[in-house]
């Protein structure tokens, strides 16, 4: 396990993010939780200053209402229904590549800024997460379903969507 590079840590600290120390590998493996209003600024800084040009993935996970301790680094208390969006970008410059992960909490009914203006590769990734999990990305140029038909009801990867939900005429 390697530590976070100093310049990336400096960027995180400049955006006044809460950098978790316990467990020790949480920051390197899962990254800090970013408030939604700081997300675009952080993404720009990571791309232009830390040279994280490679967009690895964006993955959302649905969490029904419940304790916040289900999500590492989230703290204590109760969380409403929402999704956790995990991003990972990579710096290829200078020897061994460095992965920089970060996460965003999005309550259901609210939106999170799209990262397409920063990395064009976020386009299909965010469309996929919108389609399957239902996270709405604000500012996405073309946010429509990608895997499922346009008229599909619901988002299958949500926890309240049963695996055998019927959907005429497909199943």
């Amino acid at each position, binding site marked *: 396990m390697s530590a976070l590079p100093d310049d990336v840590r400096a960027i995180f600290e400049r955006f006044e993010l809460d950098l978790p120390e316990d467990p020790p590998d949480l920051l390197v*493996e899962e990254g800090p939780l970013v408030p939604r209003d700081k997300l675009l600024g952080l993404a720009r800084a990571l*791309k232009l200053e830390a040279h994280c040009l490679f967009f690895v993935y964006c993955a959302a*996970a649905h969490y029904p209402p419940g304790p916040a301790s289900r999500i590492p680094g989230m703290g204590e208390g109760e969380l409403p229904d929402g999704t956790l969006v995990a991003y990972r970008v990579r*710096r290829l410059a200078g020897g061994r590549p460095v992965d920089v*992960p970060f996460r965003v909490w999005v309550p259901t009914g609210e939106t999170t800024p799209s990262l397409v203006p920063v990395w064009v590769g976020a386009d299909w990734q965010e469309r996929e997460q919108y389609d*399957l999990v239902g996270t709405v990305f604000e500012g996405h140029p073309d946010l429509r379903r990608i895997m499922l038909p346009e008229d599909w009801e619901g988002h299958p990867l949500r926890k309240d969507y049963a695996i055998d939900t019927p959907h005429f005429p497909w199943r």
Partner: protein
Amino acid sequence: MPLPVPRPFQRPARGATRHVEVGGVRVPYELVVDPWPDPYLDLDAYDPDADLMPINWGPQHPSTHGVLRVKLFMDGEVCVKAVPYLGYLHRGVEKLCEKLSYAQVTPIVDKNDYVSPMMNELAINMAFEKLLGVEPPPRAQVIRTIFAEMQRVASHLLWLGTWAMDAGGALGGGATLFMYCFREREMILDLFEEVTGARFHYNTHTVGGNRHDLPGGWEEKAIRVLDHIESRLPEYEDFLRDNDIFLVRTRGVGRLDPLLAMEIGVSGPSLRASGVDHDRRRDAPYAAYDRVEVKVPVRDAGDALARYEVRMDEMRESIRIARELLQDVPAGPITALKPVKMPKAIKVATGRSAYVGIESPRGELGTFVIAQNERKTAHLPYRLKIRPPSFHAMALLPYLAPGATLSDIVVIAGSLDPILGEVDR
């Protein structure tokens, strides 16, 4: 619309490839395109009077390498805008895996990238091992690496045969090259069958190691097969590399901007053909790749021909790595955990997540998995996300297709080596 990255401003002398540093990455200057084609082009604003012809390429056309539909808007012979429609093979693998225990997921993901199933198994089990904190024994690591490299040769052989057919029926004498490639690939599948009992969907990797040990004498047999395939490779190059039709069809076709490739997340041979030297096997060694030296072939041209050259070199490199490992497979157990009798025996209840990216024949095949945080359902993954390299390669089509003719688009899409089973999942 995309953020400006610092661009070079001086054109180099003709003929010479000059490299520039963009964002700290050394890329070929000639490939840097500014601006990129607009994938959200408003067709009315493009030219209200133009007589654009929409063509639905696919979903059943063989040159799409699966069931992909791309709506192409053609201005005469040249494409103006391409809109891919995915999902014809969507099976809901990620949802399905949330209802399967860690030990049961492997045979399901076998079917994602159906040309290199070994890679799917390896990627998913490595992510589970990271979540559990299990380290497979050295013998399992070496066997996994041998399987991965042989699978890479088999996958590239299939790609070579089908893509040469795409590029023109006359290349390689109709279907001759296709048949030759399949003949050699069959030898590798036979070897896998001897170990696992299955020709294709092996289900041989488990959490913590492998399920099947190598039978006696398998190593020598595998080395003989690899030697044979290596001796055949120049033959295939003679079919293509000296063929004027092939060179005209591929040289300068589908030139890929390395910055665009990085931002979209394209990896593997397609990225390395654009001059970006990045390979997970060398840069973040997993399994037994730290035991061998991995030489990474890189090309600067960025076109379909360069992608072909990178894959041909990779095949030779894979054969070399596999042979080197086959000569000295360490003895010992092949699994770190006890053989799984009850699928529910493997439990994680930390709520933590893990990401592992491996170098599959098509690029970085990643698995992002979040563990449960309740003891009751600790044997099921909470959320599983597969990062398929082909999905990212297909996201390139709206950028590479504009400006190309329909016949070139077939070559471009084929040179990216998409497998629709993992695009749609």
